[in-house]
């Protein structure tokens, strides 16, 4: 009887908290289906005058939808670069001792502690001088500074969970390092790779400061374009809400794929 009471109270607490999370998102979603007149006229819990007008504006205006395309390009680029260089590095950290390994690892993590605002101006100048300004690659590389340390940290945790005997057996069986790494090792840590990809994707997708500073026209991300809704006639709330709702969708899709590994991944593979 007592345990039943407990679980009821737990459930109630959880429901309360999840409503706290969902309510602001619900409000944004509802607003995206309203007209500006309705938003400003009275407070309604449900759109009285249901409209897709805001979404149609976004999908038919190339300056709007190109923002999503640009964001997707540099996010995918960032995830690909991060995984390519972080996988071998994490393997080295999890399997070998080498000169300066501890210092290197600490230096790597210290980059994660650098406020992006610190790197704003130097990044701008560096990428301008090598001709990368306003390209997707510039944003992807800038984001790598923050996603690679985390990726190496997570992957190292997952890789340390794989017994070393597996490597040794494979080498005795005549596998070359490259074949062993791709054919045997990577499939064994695929949940770790999934989680790492998720974190890289997530960081790059949500970041605004660097993405906005390093682009002007050709690679402008959606988060920078959203400021356009502030016009002479005030803020276009409906359009802003619709653009916001569309930015949430990729995140939901990505987390759906890694849902079974999320718990382990959030502990960086360390429990």
């Amino acid at each position: 009887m007592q345990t039943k009471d407990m679980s009821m109270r737990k459930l109630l607490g959880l429901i309360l908290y999840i409503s706290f999370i969902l309510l602001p998102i619900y409000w944004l979603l509802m607003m995206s289906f309203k007209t500006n007149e309705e938003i400003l006229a009275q407070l309604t819990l449900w759109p009285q005058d249901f409209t897709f007008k805001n979404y149609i504006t976004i999908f038919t205006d190339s300056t709007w939808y190109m923002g999503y395309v640009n964001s997707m390009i540099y996010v995918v680029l960032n995830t690909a670069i991060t995984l390519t260089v972080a996988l071998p590095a994490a393997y080295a950290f999890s399997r070998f001792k080498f000169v300066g390994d501890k210092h290197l690892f600490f230096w790597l993590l210290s980059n994660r502690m650098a406020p992006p605002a610190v790197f704003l101006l130097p990044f701008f100048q560096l990428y301008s001088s090598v001709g990368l300004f306003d390209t997707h690659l510039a944003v992807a590389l800038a984001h790598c500074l923050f996603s690679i340390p985390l990726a190496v940290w997570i992957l190292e945790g997952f890789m340390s969970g794989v017994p070393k005997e597996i490597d040794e057996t494979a080498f005795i069986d005549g596998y070359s390092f490259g074949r062993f790494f791709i054919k045997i090792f990577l499939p064994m840590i695929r949940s770790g790779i999934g989680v790492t990809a998720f974190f890289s994707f997530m960081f790059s997708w949500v970041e605004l400061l660097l993405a906005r500073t390093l682009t002007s026209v050709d690679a402008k991300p959606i988060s920078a374009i959203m400021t356009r809704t502030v016009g002479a006639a005030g803020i276009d709330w409906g359009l802003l809400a619709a653009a916001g709702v569309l930015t949430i969708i990729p995140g939901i899709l990505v987390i759906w794929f890694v849902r079974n590994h999320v718990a382990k991944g959030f502990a960086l593979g360390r429990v």
Partner: protein
Amino acid sequence: MTKLRNNKAWWLVLPMFVLVAFSAIIPLMTVVNYSVQDIFDQNTAYFVGVEWYQEVLRDTRLHDSLIRQFIFSFSVLVIEIPLGILIALLMPKTPNWKTSLVLILLALPLLIPWNVVGTIWQVFARGDIGLFGWAVNALGIDYNYTSNSLDAWLTVLLMDVWHWTPLVALLCYSGLRAIPNAYYQAAQIDRASRWAVFRYIQLPRLKSVLVIAVLLRFMDSFMIYTEPFVLTGGGPGNATTFLSQSLTQMAVGQFDLGPAAAFSLIYFLIVLLVSWLFFTTLTYEREDTAQYKAVQHNEGGS
């Protein structure tokens, strides 16, 4: 795991090293360079030594913003860490579709671009068109985050709690999931109270994830920029102007390269220093933990 000593492992690390060095060391050197020079144009620059550092350290606006930043970061930790632990304790333990659903709903705020988080709260907390602002006003509390600095500050804090508590909760949840059932059974035999189970079984086992949670939450809240920038723009007055925003104003707005660079380095050092302090104090009882782990290992083996 015993690791082999092999310096050839550097070849595996090299691509990563080159890439991160390109993005980290060159810009950092640029910052250091700026911080000791007065630059007029491409060709004229004077070495000024520590002058910019002195100027920045004397700037009272920056003192205010540093104090605000510390109060904010500590409020964030004090609220989000206990709340995150509580949420993790409430979550269902059996893995099924309901648990997956709860996990996804919990992670939702983490996946929203930071400027959209600002937008969501900008709308949600407004007295005229937002549910939250409207409800608070309807309760008879005079609330307006665009004109009252306390309200603005509380709204930024609430937004951060909404945005980042799920990260703490998910970290703690994964820590709780790793506790073997035998521990709970032993506690049941000993008739341990709910509190005793939490204090002596769950909390110690959560320690490693809590270290990660505290560090991540401290670092990220100390660098907060986008969300308050969108929500309040740092105002009213300077009530919600945190360090990153002061820095961005200085570097991009006024283009004061020298002071901005000096400020950047001080800022970075503060983050490193406080993170290091947290890390060493939180992992201080290493010997206890080592013994604990040894005991636990024996139990697992038997």
